[in-house]
């Protein structure tokens, strides 16, 4: 139904999304090249960029999937999916942070113990 408002606007939207996707992919590749983003993070963001590009070229995918799952207003599907992905990503980020925190704490403890041992051997010599 919303498509009747004019194909011109829709095309512009698609081109904008295509450009955003392209810029995102180039940025990610640049960050990986410079060593500022690694492994799993780069994969995730490239996936996001690629889906943006694919959706901008074939916007009907959203309409089709929405129709299959019985959503009458397709953009809802897009928004719900996008927000869910963001939430999942944030959750995994906090999990990663917890792992990092644990490693830092244990390293700090080990360092204190080793330093004391080092001082003791130094005193003995």
């Amino acid at each position: 139904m919303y498509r009747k408002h004019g194909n011109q606007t829709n095309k512009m939207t698609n081109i904008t999304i295509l450009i955003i996707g392209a810029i995102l992919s180039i940025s990610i590749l640049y960050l990986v090249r410079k060593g500022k983003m690694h492994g799993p993070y780069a994969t995730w963001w490239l996936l996001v960029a690629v889906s943006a590009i694919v959706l901008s070229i074939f916007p009907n995918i959203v309409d089709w999937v929405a129709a299959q799952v019985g959503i009458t207003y397709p953009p809802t599907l897009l928004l719900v999916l996008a927000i869910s992905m963001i939430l999942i990503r944030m959750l995994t980020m906090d999990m990663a942070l917890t792992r990092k925190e644990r490693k830092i704490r244990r390293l700090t403890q080990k360092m204190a113990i080793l330093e004391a041992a080092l001082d003791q051997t130094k005193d003995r010599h």
Partner: protein
Amino acid sequence: MKTLIVIPAFNEEQNLRNLLPILNAEVSHDVVVVNDASTDATAEVVKAHGLVCLTLPIQLGAWGATQTGIRYAVKKDYDQVITMDADGQHLPHEVAALIQQRQTTDANVIIGTFPSRLSRLKKLAWKYFKLLTHIKIEDLTSGFRLYDKSAIQVLSSRQASMLDYQDVGVLLILLGAGLKINEVPVKMLDRNDGKSRVFSSWMVVLKYMIQTTTLCIANMGTRPTK
């Protein structure tokens, strides 16, 4: 039976000056002070008394510091660890009471309690946490504790590294591992500095209450209660 006394300390220069001579005179066990990234001369005071000082390069808080001492005990193959506060509220001659209680019971952990020190607010908080966890222990936050070898093993684990406070979380892990906890009443002094790490300001109390509540709820049904 090799016993190690672990004292976590953050900016406790003055208190340690008072405590360490008494400790050296009254107790024959090894002592290690964990210096939690202090900005004063805590490390120097400890070394001047001829004791081992583990200096953390990054501040980890009371439990992170205590766990450092426990990991040190594992590495040096100690049989039991006694933790006490640096601020002088735990009395060196009461260490014997903890050790004696350990010998007469089959408990893995002995907590030195001094119930009358608790303010009304604290008692209310403990009641609430006891309700949540079904832990049947009088004084949940007492830092005056004895851990035996199996308790040391459990508390030096990676899982225990993620705790933020020394009290309920530690007890839950110990109970979850099937260890027995026992209490012994001891005498304690009022804090020389008058400050409690947990009960210092409303924001800190709120944060502590919320985090500990989350921990309690997340751990529901995972362990025998006593």
